Structures are given as C-alpha cells and as structure tokens.
C-alpha cells in the first residue's frame, strides 16, 4: 500500500465520519463525497472500471435519488435536528472508535490477505459480463424493473391522493 493510498483512506474515514454526524441532506451529500473519495482509492489501487461504477452509480445516481426524496419531506425543526445529532453521536461514536482501533490493530499486525489466483487467464470485463455472468445481468435487469415498478406504484398513488385532495 503506497502513502498516497493511505492518505486517501484516511480522508475516506474523515468524510465518512462527517457523513454520520450531520443533518439528513448533508448526510446525502456526505455519502456522495465518501463515494468520490472511495472511487479515488479504488482507481489508485488499479481497478478503474470499479472506480467508474462507484462514481457514476453511488456518487451520481444514488445522490440524485436521495436529494430528490429529501426535497419532498418537511425540513426538521431546530429542536429535532439537535435531538437527532445527540442520538447519532450516541449510536455511532462507539462503532467508529471500535472500527478505527480494529483497523489500526490489523495494520500494525502486518496481516496480509492471501488472495486465491483465479483459474485461467484474466478475463476482460466484456467477457465477464456477457459470457460468464449473463444470469446476473438478467437478475440486475429484474431488480431495476422491480425498483421502477415500486416507485411508479408509490408515486402514482401519491398523485392520485393529491388529485382527490383538490
């Protein structure tokens, strides 16, 4: 692991910390920022395709969905925000401290993960997607389909209720 990667991972932890300690809209933006830093880490570690997916889907698409959803909700009052921050701090701080200590202990122990070599020569992404994991592609299509169907059901219902309300 190079120094640059270590610095990026440190940055990742800091951004993730900020994400869990703030209001819901800032948390969505924080999640996007975390994804951007994670993309940099992945890119730096030699997996550019995974980095592009992380950047486009997690930092891009998911942030758009979150921010759109939050825009439909009532903003919290000051008292609610304060209360939420206290609860979040109480819930997450022990987990963060334990995770950080575990990470430092693992790093200090010099543990090296042994990775099994894949059988045969490395396959291209095209090969993997279209020849090896075609069933998963079908599954992903169904997931997207189910998600879209669910959103349509919920939003259609909401529109119908608004019309009735008028």
């Amino acid at each position, binding site marked *: 692991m190079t120094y640059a990667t270590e610095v990026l991972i440190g940055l990742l932890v800091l951004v993730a910390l900020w994400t869990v300690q703030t209001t819901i809209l800032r948390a969505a933006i924080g999640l996007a920022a975390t994804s951007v830093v994670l993309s940099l880490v992945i890119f730096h570690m030699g997996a550019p395709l995974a980095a592009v997916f992380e950047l486009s889907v997690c930092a891009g698409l998911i942030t758009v969905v979150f921010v759109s959803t939050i825009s439909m909700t009532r903003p919290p009052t000051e008292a609610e925000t304060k209360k939420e921050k206290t609860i979040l701090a109480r819930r997450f701080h022990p987990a963060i401290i334990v995770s950080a200590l575990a990470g430092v202990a693992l790093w200090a122990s010099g543990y090296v*993960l*042994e*990775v*099994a*070599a*894949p*059988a045969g020569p490395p396959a291209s992404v095209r090969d993997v997607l279209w*020849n*090896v*994991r*075609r*069933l*998963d592609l*079908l*599954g*992903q*299509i*169904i*997931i997207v*389909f*189910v*998600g879209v*169907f*669910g959103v349509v*059901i*919920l939003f259609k*219902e909401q529109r119908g209720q608004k019309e009735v309300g008028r």
Partner: protein
Amino acid sequence: MAALLVVLPLLAVVFLNLPHVRLGNRLALLFAALFCAAEGVAALAAPEGFWNRAASLADIGLTLDLTRLLGTTFLVDALARVMFLSIAVVGLCAALVARYAYVDEEQEFRFANLLLLVTAGMNGVVLVHDLFALYVFLEITAVASLVLIVIERGKSAFEGAFKYMVMGAVATSLLLTALALLFIGAGGTSFEEVAAGLRASGTSKLELVALAMFLVGLAIKAGLVPFHGWLPDAYSAAPAPVSVLLAGIVTKTTGVYTLIRLVDAVFGYGEPIRRALLVVGAVSVVIGAVSALAQRDLKRMLAYSSISQVGYIVLGLAAGPGLGLAGAVFHLFNHSVFKTLLFVNSAAVERQAGTRDMDELGGISSRMPVTGTTSVIALLSTAGIPPFSGFWSKLLIIIALWQAGHPGFAALGVAASVLTLAYFLSMQRRVFFGKLAERCSRLEEADAWGLAPALALAAVTVALGVAAPWLFQTFLLPVRSIL
C-alpha cells in the same frame, strides 16, 4: 425449461404493462394464479430431464434454449422441486386471497405484478448454484417484498417496511462482505468452487468470519432469534394477501431454504456450524413460542409462531444430513402449508370482523364455521398432533436430534410443542370458541374466494398426514440421497 420459471414471470409483467395492451385488472391476477398453478403441476409431475430441456415449439420449428442464452445450467433436484411446489401453492393461495381481500381492482393489478416478480426472484434463489447469483435473486425477492408491504401505504405499513428494509440492508451487507471474503479464498463464487476452497484451506480464520457473517445474514432473512425484530411488524403491517405470501414462502425461501442449501452443499456440517444452528434453533423455538403467548393481535401471534416453527427447521438441519435434513425439508413444506392456512383464516377474520384484536373477538366459529374448522386443523398440525402433517415432520426432527446425540434439544422440541398447543388453544378460545362477541353478532362467513384456499390447504394438511409414509418414500428419501 427451468429458466422459464424466472423468465416467464418477467415477460408476463412486461406484457401486462405495455401501454396499449392493458388487460383487465382481474385478468392479471388470473394470469399470476395460472402461472403458480402451472409451476405446481410441473414440480409435482414433470419427468426427469424435463427441467434442463430446451423450451421448444416443435410444430413451428422454434426452439428457445434459455440455458444457452443465460450461459448457465440449472440443477433441479428433489429439494428444488419441493421448493417450487411450496412457492406455487402459497403463490396461488395469495392470489385467491387478493381476489377476496382487495375491493379495489387497481390494487389487484399491482399485487398480481408484484406476485409475479417475487415469484421470479424466489424461483431464481432456488435455481442458482452460485453465491453471487444467489445474492442477486435474494435482492430481487427482498425489493419486491418491500414494495408489497407498502402497497396500501399507511403509517404501520411504512413502519413495517422500514424495519424490513433496514434489517434487509444489514443482511445484504453481511452476505455481500462474506461473499467477497469467500471469493478471496476460493477464487470463484460457484457453490462447487467455494466448497472446494473451504475444504482445501481447512477453513481458515478469515473464512470462519465469512461463514459467521453469512449465517447471521441468512438468520436475519429467516427471522431467527435474536434477529427477528422486523418480522412481526412486517407481517402484521402488510395487507392480508402479502402476509400470506411473506409468512407462507418468502422468508422460507430467502432465509430457510438458502440456509439449508448452503450448509448442505457449500459450508458443510462442521462442528461450529452445527453448534451455532442448534443454539439459534432452540432459542428461536422457545422465544417465538413464549412471545406468541403474550400477543393480542392475531397476525402478530402467527408471526411469533412462525419464528418458533422456523426454529424447528433449523434444529432439524443441525441434526445433520440424513434424517435431520429430510425432517427439516418436510417441516419447511408443512409449515408453508399450515402457516399459509392460518394467515388465510386471519385474512377472513379481519375482513369479516374488521379487527385482528383477539380480545375483541369471540365465538365466531358459530358464524364462520369453515374458517373455525380449518383453523383447528392448522393449529393441531402446527402443534404436532397426530395424524396431521406437522406431527410427522416434528417427529422426524426429534428422532434425528436424538440419534445425533442431542437428547436435550430433542426434549426441548417436545416441550415447545406443548407451548405451541397452549398459545394456539388460547387463540382458538379467544377468537373462535366461547360466547359470541357483541360486535360479531352479524358476522358472515367469508366468500368462496376466501374459503377455497383455506379448504384446499386444510385438505393438503390432512392428506399429507395420512399419506406421510408414502411421501417419505417418494419425496423425502430422494431429498436425502440427492443431497
């Protein structure tokens, strides 16, 4: 042909939603019911070799080899056929209950679409033999179930769905992390590769962590104690047909079947795994039964009862391959049948009486005699009273535990059956027997759509009990030998 079980429902949903082909709402539900019926017939009667044959219309020279198209082959063994049958039976009953429970035809249309999608997901879970593909199909089932829970909206539906989503996300994270760790060790994600990797490494510490994470993820999906918090809320918040589907088959397929398949085909019956299964199973049996005793809401009581019965299945699995596994699979199927029956009856009670609060009901057996009688059959089977089907599956599990050298757990299984009988008799007395409650004085029996699945499932419960020896020879011994 096996791939059709995933592809056909998807195509059906696309077809049903084409802008200019919009069929009648009830026709969509009929289509979903027919698909489930066809799947059930195929699971029961299809000959060997049928499942891996290419789908062909020989008369017009059209052959569609989905196996080649999807780049994979599916192994359909006796366990998979038992699951297809369970999915078909519960799916069909849920469709009938939807016809009975929904007044709004638009709701029926939405339910039909989601029923087809959730069926595709569950069939995929049963068919695949690859950990990543399994994860993908588990997610399909989870997302479709989530939408089903909120289909009628309302505060309690959103609360139930939120808990389902949060616990589902935790389970997903654990499964995905475990999958990555296992992939690192094995160099592949197919069941064979991961099993070979585990054998070769003698299960390293990293892989033990991965196995623990995988088991916890599946325990959340199955609603086992202590990961059961989401289950009573989701079951009780969901509309009646969705409760039938969730309790009858969804948690069984995503949690219990997956656990059985992976322990048997991939993880093996190592001592740490067996010990963990024994403890989780026993705790679930007891906590589920004790919690069921304290409930006022009929559906919540049935939900806690489900947790207890799933505990029995896990105990059977912990007893090891052979009799234990056969008992676990038999109880899985039985539980699908009699728990679906109980939820069908709760749907009838809720629709006719307008409440699920058992303290507000009473004596309704005189007004709803068919519902009352089928409820008695289901409760006796759940409690393991002979000659109903539940007796035989529990007997197999208890004998298997005894033979595997766990007499304490076998005794606990017997004792918990008494608890099961206690909470069900309490339910039966408060809801169906005794003096007719004032608010129920004008109650009427459910209509044919509500009664048909109840009668059919009661008949299956009795028939399975009477024909248990035949069933054991033809279905369960093959399960044991194939696995």
